[in-house]
């Protein structure tokens, strides 16, 4: 007999695969767009879970990497459209509108920035780590606000979505499936990672980092690699987010977005990778429903979150999938 966890995962995946045709059949095309957004933020939240749930690193600046990914796509697309040279790079390359160029660039840029921020932040731990990641993210936020070439506070428009040969990414349903494939791909890779030797070290860091060092493990290096990988995942989410809204603004990087990512991880179930997908769905759907009732929807969300943290510590996914959900 299949375990409860397998049932939940299979059902969840089938629902996600079947969602666009169902939404169109019921005359609710907006659902496809909403769920694309959920998939994108689920990807960002799952990447955060890698360091938060497994490595015990509470980063309050994870949205910065989403922003870096989004701006990479925005900037490359902007110069490709204008035919002007991309600044800060050697030569006079004028960007590209191809997803095959834009997305890896977004992932690479986010990983690189994460590597730099991580190298500095991981000298600290606990509350100091929270504060320093927050500080770096806010620095990036204000940096992009102060870039008039790219719209400053107003952000920049994407003139077209990233081009994938043979696919019409402008079509909401096609784009939805692109997001779904990338999310599932990321989850599979991340699962492999947390089960590997590297993943065991990462989990060990959360439980007792001093002991790992005493055994002879250079833990800081391991945590830094994990931080960069998580940043890369967030960068990919950013690239997709830019495509979805066809618009990039500094608000993506604001610390409240980082806070929302932590909420998604907690709500869905920390240290499960799949949990954050449930968390992202729950948070964004609640936002959708509650904003229809009152603009002060946070008043309802806040107490709800407290209840989850107090009474369902394993999160929505842990509650659905039972004790097997979490791999310690």
């Amino acid at each position, binding site marked *: 007999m299949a375990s409860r966890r397998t049932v939940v995962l299979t059902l969840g995946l089938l629902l996600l695969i079947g969602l666009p045709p169902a939404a169109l059949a019921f005359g609710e095309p907006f659902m496809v767009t909403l769920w694309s957004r959920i998939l994108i933020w689920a990807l960002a939240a799952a990447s955060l879970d890698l360091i938060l749930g497994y490595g015990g690193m509470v980063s309050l600046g994870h949205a910065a990497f989403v922003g870096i990914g989004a701006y990479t796509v925005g900037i490359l697309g902007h110069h490709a459209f204008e035919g002007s040279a991309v600044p800060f790079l050697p030569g006079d390359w004028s960007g590209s509108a191809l997803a095959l160029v834009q997305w890896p660039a977004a992932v690479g840029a986010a990983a690189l920035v994460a590597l730099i921020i991580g190298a500095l932040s991981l000298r600290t731990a606990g509350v100091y780590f929270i504060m320093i990641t927050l500080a770096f993210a806010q620095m990036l936020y204000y940096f992009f606000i102060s870039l008039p070439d790219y719209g400053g506070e107003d952000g920049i428009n994407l003139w077209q979505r990233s081009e994938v040969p043979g696919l019409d990414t402008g079509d909401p349903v096609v784009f939805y499936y692109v997001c779904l494939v990338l999310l599932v791909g990321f989850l599979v890779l991340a699962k492999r990672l947390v089960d590997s030797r*590297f993943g065991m070290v990462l989990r060990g860091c959360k439980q007792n980092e001093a002991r790992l060092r005493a055994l002879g493990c250079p833990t800081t290096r391991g945590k830094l690699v994990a931080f960069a990988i998580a940043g890369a995942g967030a960068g990919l989410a950013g690239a997709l987010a830019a495509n979805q809204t066809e618009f990039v603004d500094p608000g993506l990087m604001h610390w409240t977005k980082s806070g929302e990512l932590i909420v998604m991880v907690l709500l869905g179930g920390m240290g499960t990778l799949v949990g954050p997908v449930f968390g992202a769905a729950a948070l964004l759907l609640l936002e959708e429903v509650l904003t229809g009732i009152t603009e002060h929807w946070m008043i309802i969300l806040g107490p709800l979150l407290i209840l989850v943290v107090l009474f369902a510590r394993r999160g929505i996914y842990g509650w659905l999938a039972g004790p097997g959900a979490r791999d310690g």
Partner: protein
Amino acid sequence: MAEPILEVRGLTKRFGALAASDGLDLTVRRGTVHGLIGPNGAGKTTAINQLSGELSPDSGHVLFEGRDVTRLPVHRRARLGLQRSYQITSLFPDFTALDNVAMAVQIRGRSCFGMGRPARRDPTLRDPARALLDRVGLDDRRDVVAGGLAHGEKRQLEIAMALAAGPRMLLLDEPMAGVGRRETRRLMDLLAPLRGEITLLLVEHDMDVVFALADEITVMVKGRAIASGPPESIRADREVRRAYLGDYG
């Protein structure tokens, strides 16, 4: 006489006005069990922490196998073969006993950050870990989460982990602390056969244990070594008796 594996010269560490190590000299010979004793507050744990690299001395030198390791970080010393165990058990509480030892085996190996195959299904990690759990008598507690083990069992696990790391020298900080008579016996039976294979530096409050196991004993008082020698001569030393053993009659 075997050659020294560890030499400590003039180790000094101050915490404000308190000198926890005050020009400590210590020589441990290869393959021996070396006891480090002294009254409470003599600076034994501070000394161990400087040998393992968790604390950095204000002055003095630590030589391990002839190499100056005074400024090497913890993980580098561990990789040279200088391992330690802790006075307060230090495990991975959410991992099973087997996971704990497998982790130590993994870090000893070359690819401690491997990203390939699943670590929990890797026989090159699991098999040696199982063998070590057998050796310390925890074979039937393999799949119990470490946080749920009894105190004595945690001690045994701690030793299995230290051994898994393949040490040449093991710093044992009060391995019998808070352990009952029977478990003490079992731990002693575990440690005794290591003589010759691994050098042990044993900090311990239980005098019976130290005098039964040690080939050589160093007595610390107020951050310095006041006597060093075989157990018989330590027992006979008048200064030692006055400073320390007097309490024990």
